[in-house]
């Protein structure tokens, strides 16, 4: 039910809408709930609305942390 997925913003459309892509699958969604969405951003999409922006730096850090744990193992 809380199914949500990070998608890439490809084009900002009028009326707080945007064209987003997930591996070439493209949909038009609302970005009314997230401020200052730009082309190239990744946003978390839920029931047709972007809910949050993915912070690429934090994502990188999380992965790095995971890899560090793995390296320890």
């Amino acid at each position, binding site marked *: 039910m809380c*199914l949500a*997925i990070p998608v890439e913003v490809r084009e900002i459309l009028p009326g707080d809408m945007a064209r987003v892509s*997930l*591996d*070439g*699958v*493209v*949909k038009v969604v609302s970005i009314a709930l997230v401020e200052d969405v730009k082309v190239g951003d990744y946003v978390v*999409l839920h029931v047709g609305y972007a809910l949050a922006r993915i912070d690429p730096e934090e994502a990188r850090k999380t992965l790095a942390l995971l890899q560090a744990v793995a390296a320890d193992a």
Partner: protein
Amino acid sequence: MSLAKPIRRKLDLANGRVDLSHGAGGRAMGRLIEDVFLAAFDNAWLAAGNDQSAFEVAACRMVMTTDAYVVSPIFFPGGDIGTLAVNGTINDIAMAGARPLYLSASFVLEEGLPLADLVRVARSMGEASRAAGVPIITGDTKVVERGKADKIFISTAGVGVTPPGLALSSDAVQPGDAVVVSGTIGDHGVAVMSKRENLEFETAILSDCAPLHGLVADMVAAAGPGLRVMRDPTRGGLAATLNELANQSGVGFTLEEDAIPVRAEVAAACEFLGLDPLNVANEGKLVAIVAPDRLEPLLAAMRAHPLGARAAMIGRAVEDPDRFVEMRTVFGGGRIVDWLAGEQLPRIC
């Protein structure tokens, strides 16, 4: 001396619509059948104008099958309800290892259907039938009031002949047998769903709709009696097909998620929709269960055929009184691959 004949006006195939007179058994119906179906299917059996068609057969083991096609929308990327109606029924024959011989087609048309759409569907059927070498030799057309059908429903039936000695059977699977799929899964269902109202998304995915009897002939030749059973994972997808086979053969299956071919775009569309590609319909793929010693020749033969280029061994049959289909996930854990409970996906076939 005979009278002047009525001038036979062609149907307005560009702008006309199916109306109730086209189903009433009169001259209007005859004209629809002639201008649309006989023109598109174009064979001597139909031209004979009988209520049935005849053909000679040698002594053989025959198979017969039927499917109704109600897909919505009727046109989708990579095909339409017509290609589906021809290839789907050919495939159900091919899954018995049989060579499809002849098809029948019956139509339920909704009053108001644009004749242009009907012609497009009929031509698709004619082309698919010629491409597969399986003529549509008899048919029927009914027209129902607007709102009593959804544009067009097609039921095709088909007959075919099994090579001597071949006896595939859904209860023949043995623990240890290999599970093979002929290519990527989920393409058809995703292609159809991409065009559903309120669900639209843009994608380059095409339906995989294709006739599999050529591939099957190569498989039969390569695997011989090592081939236990084949099935095309249509409605309910790979998950439903393997659960059916598990139940019918009294075995379990273990799959490797990593080994199952799925296009990236299909996976992405499934993420969007909250679906599992294992539950999504295919129309040009098959699952084969094969004895371990015939796996390699089978895979080699499949990969040599254009419709089996991405064939893969995805798992094995195992002894299991619970008849579970289990899968080791990409993540390394195990899970059951179940039928979808009460799925209400769009009409995809």
